[in-house]
């Protein structure tokens, strides 16, 4: 039973929390970081063990003890999701993420306006809750730049201040300067993907990633071991928050990290301010931190859950929820996928990290004309192994054999033995739209190991716009497989409605306090000393992975807190 006082308490030390801790510490604010998991070190990661980290999810939240439940609609009963895609330790998801690090497109921040301007308001599905972001790409560009340089991102510019650069992504928004590090070397799948894509008139390129292609800031370059996504990097070449911002936060002398601590409530008083947080220590003790500023960065589930759990007489619908928007507009990527197998060549997709693989952006965002297609927004397309990394168990578990080949028996064994080194998957990661009835709330039936109600997702991606988009993309992926020269091209079955990777929404930002939870800085409209940071604030998503944008937003919020809020606490927008 301890009570501590501090300037700032940050809940969750992941992609967002770690940046805020370092930046606010540097600004001279006393920061306490709460993290439910431990703080591991590079030497703790025994990479190369697919079973342990990939199948048994050693670094991820335990799906049984820390359940997040899902149901396709409000009439169904929710069941725990089998795999959880976020962090569970200091450094959060960045310890075991794939480290693909995209900047969103200019039109990702204004897809509502973009759609209306180009196709008319009727192109947006009637039940869709799409709004523009309350900021533009240009507003965020300086912070993307800082994130890339401070963390260490490898890639090639496609658009330097408006000048298109050969070999980069021609659809990227203008950037002020090159990436700090050159791209990782091209692997075999990248070579054949690029050749096939060019035949179809596309513009393939090496995906940008927060993995060092050479020594940077005292950390070594990647050795391409291929045990990356779902694994911790055993040499520290992945630019995780654990090896970048947490040491920086330590060095400020203003930062204290409390590991094994589970925040269960944000405390508030009758004046309408938050006063701190309550948490359980690893010994089961019940503790309090009193803080001038509370920052929530525990990923989207606990952003919503903590706000709902912290209701009081003054805030009967939960904190920061006068709009009634908390928990709404949940979004997730869906991976439409085909397999391509080659009788006449090896691909060896298991070599090198997944993030090393190539992508194309021609079918993403509004980079192509959607007229008459029956859907808006697109998908990022990449070449990839059957699962997050290319190990043999993942390939066997996640690659459905082509039609006619069984899932077991001699023919299955022969299929695996012939094609394991000769296949690639091609995946389209879709920019699914927000809908108000896609929600996060508290599960009345399932509790976690702490006795808290599990976050419950109500979500089904199979809406007309999304189904039409997936069908269109699967056709494109099949064309790509054939253009690459594959002997066999076949589809992977689509999931049964559950959210895929990268969950967004629940505390969306906006320009109007009536229809959004926070402003562009992640500051609650209702409670100015409460900030909520992470992809929960996204009003719309993108076909791109979310984390670099989470990190750029964290830099932007830290900058506003250190340079404006600290001197004059109050609403920033």
């Amino acid at each position, binding site marked *: 039973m301890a009570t501590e006082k501090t300037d700032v308490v940050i809940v969750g030390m992941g992609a967002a929390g770690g940046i805020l801790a370092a930046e606010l510490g540097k600004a001279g604010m006393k920061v306490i970081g709460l993290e439910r998991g431990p703080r591991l070190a590079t030497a703790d990661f025994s990479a190369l063990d697919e*079973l342990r980290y990939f199948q048994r999810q*050693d670094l991820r939240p335990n799906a049984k003890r820390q359940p997040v439940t899902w149901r396709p609609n409000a009439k169904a009963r929710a069941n725990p999701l089998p795999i959880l895609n976020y962090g569970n330790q200091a450094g959060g998801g960045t310890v075991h993420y794939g480290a693909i690090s995209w900047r969103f497109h200019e039109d990702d921040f204004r897809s509502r306006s973009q759609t209306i301007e180009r196709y008319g308001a009727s192109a947006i599905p009637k039940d869709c809750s799409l709004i523009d972001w309350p900021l533009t790409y240009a507003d965020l560009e300086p912070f993307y730049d800082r994130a890339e340089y401070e963390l260490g991102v490898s890639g090639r510019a496609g658009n330097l201040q408006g000048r298109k650069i050969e070999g980069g992504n021609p659809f990227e928004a203008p950037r002020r300067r090159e990436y700090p590090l050159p791209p990782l070397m091209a692997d075999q799948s990248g070579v054949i993907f690029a050749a096939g894509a060019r035949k179809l008139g596309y513009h393939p390129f090496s995906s940008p990633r927060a993995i060092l292609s050479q020594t940077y800031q005292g950390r070594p370059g990647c050795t391409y071991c291929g045990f990356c996504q779902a694994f911790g990097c055993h040499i520290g070449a992945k630019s995780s928050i654990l090896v970048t911002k947490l040491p920086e936060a330590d060095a400020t002398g203003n930062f204290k990290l409390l590991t094994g601590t589970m925040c269960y*409530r944000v405390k508030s008083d009758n004046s309408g301010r938050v006063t701190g947080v309550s948490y359980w220590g690893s010994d089961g003790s019940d503790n309090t931190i009193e803080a001038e500023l509370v920052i929530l960065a525990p990923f989207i589930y606990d952003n919503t859950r903590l706000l709902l759990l912290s209701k009081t007489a003054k805030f009967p619908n939960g904190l920061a929820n006068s709009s009634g928007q908390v928990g709404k507009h949940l979004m997730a990527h869906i991976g439409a996928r085909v397999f391509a197998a080659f009788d006449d060549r090896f691909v060896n997709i298991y*070599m090198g990290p997944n993030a090393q693989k190539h992508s194309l952006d021609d079918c993403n965002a509004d980079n192509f004309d959607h007229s008459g297609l029956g859907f808006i927004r697109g998908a990022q397309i990449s070449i990839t192994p059957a699962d997050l990394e290319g190990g043999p168990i993942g390939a066997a578990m996640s690659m459905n054999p082509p039609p006619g080949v069984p899932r077991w028996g001699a023919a299955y064994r022969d299929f695996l033995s012939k094609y*394991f080194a000769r296949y690639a998957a091609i995946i389209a990661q879709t920019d699914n739209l927000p809908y108000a009835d896609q929600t996060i709330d508290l599960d009345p039936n399932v509790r976690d190991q702490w006795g808290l109600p599990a976050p419950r997702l109500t979500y089904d991606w199979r809406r007309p716009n999304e189904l039409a988009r997936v069908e269109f993309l699967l056709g494109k992926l099949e064309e790509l497989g054939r253009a690459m020269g594959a002997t066999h091209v076949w589809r992977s079955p689509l999931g049964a409605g559950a959210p895929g990777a990268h969950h967004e929404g629940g505390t969306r930002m906006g320009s109007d306090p009536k229809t959004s939870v926070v402003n562009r800085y992640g500051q609650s409209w209702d409670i100015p000393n409460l900030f909520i940071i992470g992809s929960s604030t996204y009003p719309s998503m993108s076909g791109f992975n979310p984390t670099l944008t989470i990190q750029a937003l964290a830099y932007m919020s830290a900058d506003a807190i250190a340079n404006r809020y600290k001197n004059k606490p109050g609403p920033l927008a």
Partner: protein
Amino acid sequence: MANKTDDERVTLSRRELLKRVGIVGVAAASVPAQALVPAAAMAPPVETSLSPQAVALPREALETFTAVEAATVEAMVARLIPTDENGPGAREARAAHYIDRALSGALASSLDAYRSGLSALDSYARASKGAPFAQLSTEEQDAVLTDMEHNVATGFAPNASTFFNLVRTHTIQGTFSDPYYGGNANFVGWDLIGYPGVRLAVTANDQRLDPHLIPTHKSAYDYTMFSKTRPARASLEGLEGLEGREGRARHGD
């Protein structure tokens, strides 16, 4: 791309594999690797004279299963990833040993499912084919497994396909995981599919098209930097503070 050498390489390495596990015969050496896809063109499975009992493999001491259960699991994994003149399978990889060991450790939460599933499997085999699963012919075993996969086999809780998929998953793990866990014996699973094994670094040369990589035949834990005996904090599992909070009073309503 010339594919001849590739195919030769694959065929050769399969024969080599079969030799290593001691099951290559005169007939096997003359049977070419079966063409696989498209399935329409696929020949019916080549019947083999090799019965599952033909090759005596060393058997490890049981850690979880009873002898009867072990025999059933052995028979099941041997049909899921079978052994024939085209290559070794889950039996040589010792997938059943992997499962037996894991059910007393990381997969302990599946033990009840195995106990009831294996007993249901034998009951169904007896009722539909007249003998326990392990004593059926391979054709009968395949018919029973097909019934399970399609969820028409009865007597399983919650149902037959759930148990089928559980064992399939664990058979794949036991055939292709790091040998540290008791399966993939002698790297037979990795060699079977042409996976050259784990390595700390992959060079640009390795990543060129059509490399002929020499298998490392190393477990991750053969690299001294990855000792499994390092402190438990290297793993999130079993960390204090994650356990023992069930039934805590509600907070924060």
